[in-house]
């Protein structure tokens, strides 16, 4: 009957037997080991992310720049004509023939544009094509850089690619 005293006592006081504490060095070593691992993973992800986003940002900036240049002759000229008319009615009036001043608004706009285009085109042409070449080249380089991550991070690449596509389609819309 009494042989089970020992077992019973240990069972009843089981927790009291676990009274020793390991020294802090055990956790310190473990922490070093496992926080290092995770930190490494995080930092790799972070640098990769920065790399990709900087390339993507460069592509976006360059494409916007190139697009603005491409549209300089058509898009921006409308703006300059309006300001020219608004700010200096004297000079504009002097240069523009009488008929245009009297003509309805739509017509004024059209003719003014033609005048502006013909006067600035030749001067702009050289510098413009140089810039266009430069930005196209830059876009190409950045696109190649982005292409390099296609294998490593296909999902990320796809999302950036989709963004660039979207940007391209916007430029057509505008």
């Amino acid at each position, binding site marked *: 009957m009494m042989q089970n005293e020992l077992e019973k006592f240990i069972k009843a006081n089981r927790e009291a037997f676990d009274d*020793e504490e390991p020294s802090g060095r055990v956790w310190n070593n473990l922490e070093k080991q496992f926080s290092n691992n995770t930190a490494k993973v995080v930092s790799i992800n972070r640098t990769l992310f920065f790399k990709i986003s900087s390339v993507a940002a460069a592509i976006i900036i360059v494409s916007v720049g190139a697009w603005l240049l491409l549209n300089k002759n058509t898009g921006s000229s409308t703006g300059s004509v309006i300001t020219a008319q608004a700010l200096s009615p004297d000079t504009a009036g002097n240069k523009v023939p009488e008929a245009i001043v009297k003509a309805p608004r739509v017509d004024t706009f059209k003719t003014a544009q033609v005048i502006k285009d013909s006067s600035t085109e030749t001067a702009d042409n050289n510098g413009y094509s140089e810039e266009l070449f430069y930005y196209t080249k830059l876009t190409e380089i950045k696109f190649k850089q982005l292409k390099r991550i296609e294998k490593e991070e296909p999902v990320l690449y796809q999302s950036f690619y989709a963004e660039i596509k979207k940007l391209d389609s916007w430029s057509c819309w505008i």
Partner: protein
Amino acid sequence: MEITTGIMFDEVVERCRQGDASGYSILYKRYSKAMFNTSLRIVNNAADAEDVLQDAFTDAFGGLKDFNFSSTFGAWLKKIVINKSLNLLRKKKLLLIDTDDEAVQGLKEDEMPDESYLLLQVAKIKKAMQTLDSGYRSVLSLYLFEGYDHEEISEIMAVPSTTVRSQYMRARQKLVTLLNKA
């Protein structure tokens, strides 16, 4: 499989598996003390027990990807701790299991030493355990403190279960004798 997965599921373990490092510290805090004492009862030396503890957690954390919740994390970790503790004794050639089963064959249950008059105290038992041979101490630890049965211990220690049984009888007898002397 799905049922056990549900029962044994541990949110903190899952967090670690997903790569959330904060879970490691929670698991360490939850299990380190018990595991350290488990190892200490077997290896009988604080520095060795700390080495075992560190090794075991390293293996457990590193192997979490393969952990499938078929047992609790605690039970899994305990197995690792015990295996590492026993291996350390083997390496030091301290784990000598006497395979001569004859000695206790005649010893019947009711011939076991009477413990009724023993003033059982935690500190006394711990001290007596520490003076036992490693083989005795290991078997007693696994049976009395860790709750494994003779079959499970025979598997863990890779000795026949009859040997575990006789080893346990002798170890227990020796412990009681020591306690009576103290």
